[in-house]
């Protein structure tokens, strides 16, 4: 999609990165961190990269580096063992080692959430409560890949039924208009279900635009992602 993007402040840095995505896929598939596991999740990883491309993030380079390495591992796993050393050069990245190291730090950082957080679990004296003055803190709980996965699912769903009424709505979606719609809906409801914000019956582009708006709102703290029986909901926190 050629994007005249009003949401240039939505960068990929809201995501935790390609290693995080890979670890999630490995865990989802109940695998351990071995080269073989990596070739098993390669296709799923590439699907996500395709999706990120569609959202038109420009800082996708690191995801492609890992994709290339996965492809290399996969092609090596397909070769008979005896040929392996002769044909393929040494890996440029030791992906397995990188993942193991990253996983430790990710787990450590996650553990910080369990500590008593100032402004969430404990409060100190604050002479001027009208200011936030670094005394109120919160940590985002749900990782954004869960949201991406749900968006991915409904976009794939749409591929099945290429219904004609989508053809009619071909005109470009006004992103500002859509943002106003979303914010108004949140103002009157406070909590909205995923399917209400992302409605594929309004077409693919509408879903993509809505996703960029939601990411933006998550980033500026006006939306929380909640999980309710494995279903994603959004809680409006005001602007």
């Amino acid at each position, binding site marked *: 999609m050629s994007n005249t993007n009003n949401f240039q402040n939505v960068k990929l840095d*809201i995501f935790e990165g390609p*290693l995080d995505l890979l670890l999630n896929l490995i865990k989802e598939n109940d695998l351990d961190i071995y080269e073989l596991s990596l070739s098993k999740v390669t296709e799923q990883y590439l699907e996500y990269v395709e999706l990120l491309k569609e959202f038109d993030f420009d800082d996708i380079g690191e995801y492609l580096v890992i994709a290339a390495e996965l492809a290399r591992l996969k092609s090596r796993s397909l070769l008979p063992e005896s040929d392996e050393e002769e044909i393929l050069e040494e890996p440029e990245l030791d992906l397995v080692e990188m993942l193991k190291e*990253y996983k*430790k*730090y990710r787990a*450590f950082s996650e553990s*910080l959430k369990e500590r008593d957080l100032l402004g969430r679990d404990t409060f100190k004296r604050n002479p001027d409560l009208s200011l936030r003055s670094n005394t109120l803190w*919160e940590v985002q*709980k749900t990782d954004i890949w869960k949201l991406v996965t749900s968006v991915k699912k409904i976009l794939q769903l749409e591929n099945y039924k290429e219904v004609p009424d989508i053809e009619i709505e071909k005109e470009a979606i006004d992103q500002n208009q859509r943002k106003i719609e979303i914010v108004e809906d949140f103002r009157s409801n406070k909590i909205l279900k995923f399917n209400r914000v992302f409605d594929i019956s309004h077409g693919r582009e509408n879903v993509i635009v809505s996703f960029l708006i939601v990411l933006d709102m998550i980033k500026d703290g006006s939306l*929380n992602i909640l999980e309710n029986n494995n279903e994603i909901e959004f809680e409006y926190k005001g602007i």
Partner: protein
Amino acid sequence: MNDLKNKVEAIIFISESPVKSKEIANFLDEDIKAINETLKILVEEWKNRGNSIKIEEIAGGFQFRTKEEYKEILIEYVNKKPYKLSRAGLEVVGIIAKKQPITKIEIDKIRGVDSVGAINVLIERELIEVIGEKDVPGRPYLYSTTELFLEVFSLNSIHDLPGIEEFDDYEKEVDKNPD
């Protein structure tokens, strides 16, 4: 003894940031040992007093804070949007906490992704700071966590954090609680 205890208590009470025992000793012109002893008693007394406030050792000093049971009502009372740390931000501050002083490139290498956005947010929120430059070509900045980091995560010292090796085979428990 009671007089000294009350003085120490009053000093901690009016202070916004954690007060170090040495500062109190210097100011009151008392032996540091006596002050430490007094602080220990005070912490214990407030802990057992059955009210909503405690004295906690934070960032190498002492600070009055509310007990966890009162968080709901206080969140409601304050009624302000908190600073929200993204998971990426948490990840970066965690890496810095463990490996400080550390350069951006070293952080990027662990995460496999550019961390500039997270670093900027963390600096702006004063959870990390530049403490120097690394003596390598390009002289990249070295980042460390701040005293505010210790306050926000209720730590007395950075060394109170568990070792990274403890997370070698940590299986992440998925947090099902809504935000």
